[in-house]
């Protein structure tokens, strides 16, 4: 398979030479031309190539967040600047940021190890919620769960993705990663039909806003995590039900009028599916990033992008919508493309409207910039590239209302910036090496494997065959 890649490149070289000469260009431009071609959208989705000095600067700013908010005792990084709480999604952010920083040369092998090792040690020893799965939150300083809060199947999904990427990127750690994951009881979040269930298990003592059963986008994203670890997950098909600027978009099955639960359509999960998987099927390791083997998913992500570009086109409102966090109330905003019946709805998880807090979200803008090389994303980047404090990291974004800064710095946004820059340099971030691991060997032994392994999944009864 590797040779097929090589073959492609030689083919280009020959073709390129032919055309360049026919246009009468001098030979010394050939090398530059070749680099341009090799980095072009012929082979890569969106932007590809070496980072410019400015982009390296952006990466350093993002990494600054992880320097400032690092807790050496646990290896955890605070979810929000100087708040010592991290949820499982943030643990995944931390792995993503650390791997990306290493790939970009921001940290050396020694520092990489000194960040990864405490984290893996923590993952292998952390208390589990009800003894089953990672708790929703941990105290980033001492690694304790303040109470049994329950778990989030979506957050766990992202962690699974990044532990798999880490395992492939630095195989020397894969044994310890496997051991951490083998502690978890997956039967609590995957049903026999390969569907995620128990998305959020909330305790009555610490009631969090309930989540939809299949959160839009995040569900598909999380599913990839379980799939990378061999669980036979089933994707669902969602009929598009809303249309904005004549672009059909998926909408939630949840009806917030009945359930009181909002399920917003936001950019980030679709962007992460692009950055990490290039909207490919999981076993697709070699196709160029210009080609997505899961065409339906790629098309959906494209529409999510396009509808935001169209809003700019028609309304001249810069748009890059995704959930974001604030350091003061309301702490979490559904900064959506569509929610509860309305386009461009901005609300809290409790359904309170906050149109004034609509945001050009940095994480969404960076993701779109990386994945689609267009004049619109050039414009977006011009708008958001100053949104940082070199001492703190990247902000959450710029308010639509007045252009003001939303200065909160978070683990997720800064991790996404690092992911984006690593993506620009290397293309999709998940490329499985499929080497035999500790878990693979353990799984084959029916006496030793954990209670709920992919091999022990019962037959799906409830679902109708199509």
């Amino acid at each position, binding site marked *: 398979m590797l040779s097929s890649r090589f073959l492609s490149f030689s083919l280009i070289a020959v*073709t390129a030479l032919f*055309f360049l000469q026919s246009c009468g260009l001098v030979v010394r431009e050939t090398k530059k031309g070749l680099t341009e071609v090799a980095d072009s959208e012929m082979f890569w989705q969106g932007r590809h190539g070496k980072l410019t000095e400015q982009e390296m600067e952006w990466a350093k700013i993002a990494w600054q967040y992880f320097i400032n908010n690092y807790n050496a005792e646990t290896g955890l990084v605070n979810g929000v600047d100087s708040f010592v709480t991290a949820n499982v999604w943030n643990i995944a952010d931390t792995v993503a940021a650390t791997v990306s920083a290493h790939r970009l040369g921001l940290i050396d092998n020694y520092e990489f190890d000194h960040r990864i090792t405490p984290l893996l040690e923590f993952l292998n020893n952390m208390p589990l919620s009800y003894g089953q799965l990672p708790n929703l939150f941990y105290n980033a300083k001492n690694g304790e769960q303040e109470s049994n809060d329950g778990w989030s199947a979506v957050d766990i999904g992202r962690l699974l993705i990044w532990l798999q990427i880490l395992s492939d990127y630095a195989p020397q750690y894969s044994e310890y990663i496997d051991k951490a994951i083998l502690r978890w009881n997956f039967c609590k979040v995957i049903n026999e039909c390969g569907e995620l269930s128990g998305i959020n298990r909330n305790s009555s003592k610490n009631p969090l806003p309930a989540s939809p059963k299949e959160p839009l986008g995040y569900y598909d994203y999380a599913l990839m995590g379980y799939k990378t670890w061999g669980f036979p997950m089933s994707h669902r098909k969602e009929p598009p039900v809303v249309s904005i600027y004549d672009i059909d978009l998926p909408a939630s099955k949840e009806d917030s009028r009945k359930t009181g639960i909002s399920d917003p359509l936001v950019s980030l999960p679709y962007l992460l599916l692009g950055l990490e998987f290039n909207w490919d099927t999981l076993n697709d390791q070699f196709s160029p990033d210009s080609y997505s083997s899961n065409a339906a998913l790629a*098309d959906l992500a*494209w*529409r999510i992008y396009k509808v935001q570009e169209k809003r*700019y086109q028609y309304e001249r409102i810069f748009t890059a919508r995704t959930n974001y966090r604030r350091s003061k109330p309301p702490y979490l905003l559904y900064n959506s493309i569509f929610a509860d019946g309305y386009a461009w709805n901005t609300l809290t998880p409790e359904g309170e409207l906050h149109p004034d807090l609509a945001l050009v979200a940095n994480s969404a803008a960076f993701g779109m910039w990386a994945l689609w090389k267009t004049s619109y994303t050039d414009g977006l980047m011009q708008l958001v590239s100053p949104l940082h404090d070199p001492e703190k990291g990247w902000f959450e974004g710029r308010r639509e209302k007045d252009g003001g800064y939303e200065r909160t710095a978070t683990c997720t946004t800064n991790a996404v910036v690092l992911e984006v820059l690593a993506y620009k340099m290397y293309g999709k971030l998940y490329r499985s090496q499929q080497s035999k691991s500790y878990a693979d060997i353990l799984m084959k032994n029916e006496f030793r494997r954990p209670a709920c392994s992919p091999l022990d999944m019962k037959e799906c009864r409830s679902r109708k065959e199509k």
Partner: protein
Amino acid sequence: MRRKNFLLLSCSVFLFFSACTGNNSPFAPVKLSDEGGKNSGKSASVSSKLAGIRERTPAPLTEEEFELAKIAWKFFEKNTQDNGMCNAVDQYPSTTMWDTASYIGGLVSAYELGVIEKHEFNMRMTKLIGMLNRLEFFNNELPNKVYHTQTGAKVDYSNQPGEVGYSAVDMGRMLIWFKIVKERYPIHAAAIDNFILKWNFSNMIDDTGTMFSAMLKDGKILYLQEGRLGYEEYAAKGFQLWGFDTERASKLEPYQTIPIYDIEVPYDSRDPRTLVAHNYVVTESYVLDAIELGWDLSSDRSSSQEVHTDQVLANFAKRIFAVQEARYKDTGILTARTEHQLDQPPYFVYDTIYSDGYPWNTMDPDGKLMPQFAAVALKGAFGIWAVWDMPYSQTLLDAVGHLYDPEKGFYEGLYENGSGNINIFTANNNGIILECLLYKAQGKILRFNQSPQPSRWDKTMDECPPEARDRAQCLREHT
């Protein structure tokens, strides 16, 4: 193999452009093309879904249909007061201008269909217009929203003496029906003109052609833009028929569409979250525009039955039919959605195809979800039957044609959830049912008198300036 071909192809195409043409600046101003993207084939597929929808060709009523007309007329027999006014709801002495227009619609239809004699028709019309000419207006401007039908006094919503405001949409429907009566029966024209000349249009329509309602809040009068897609254009045609320019009200914009069963259903995009007014999509406004005005422009005095000069509206109406038929085909739930009354609290629901962000939303006037009151509204079912000659139209009529009390008229509706009929009788429902039967027999109800009649209204309008506010002022000075 496939992949390799793909590479080669894109490779050569790209090189051709990049090597031979200039480079693009990274900081060029943002420019966007209008290309339709991957959704561009959509409108074509929608129109193909609408292609097979046939409209009804007028034909004389069958005997059974004539019986239906007689039943609907029963409501008005039972509910007309000695002074000429008619109750909006069975045995409750209160009405609005909208419901009064529905009574006029029922009256004209009953006469045209031969349910009542000419003498009864003319006596009823004379008494009604006579009573209207004696009404006290809200703030001395325009007919109040509600009147007591026995005393003719203006009242509040609890039917106690008082006033609440007025509705331009109600007034628009009234103007449509008085135009129909004037054109068909010139003997009533002078009395009608006299009534309309009393109206003060100054605050109801402005120079941009926007319509306003009035309401009282804490003793102060608020004038608020009134009308949403469907009702707004329908009511505006009433104003146009009387010579007013309704430029903004008549624009379909601002609207957007939502795909339901792959049919792009248009809805008013003014935001119910901030503007209070709901943006309900229902059958009634589109059906009324069809049966009374033929989906024609108000200036169209001569096009044939098959031609609809208000083309976009006619296309929207088709989608309203198609999406309800599609729901029936998908779920087996008979669907003819429109606002209707209830026989229990909250007494009224917007029972919609789409409203406030959700398809098939059924809500009370405050916007609270009330799915248990979703119903086949009889006026909706009759409307669909009258306008479209399709198997689904007949299915609907078969399902509701028996839902009447032989002494009181047709029931308001049939609950979707199987809990029976809505046990209430209304002027609007029975009036529109009669209109539907008249449309089935004669086609478009508005028929312009081919020999223009002398008219006090027209003379006054000719002498007044065209700008809405000045004209309204001038009209007042002429009376």
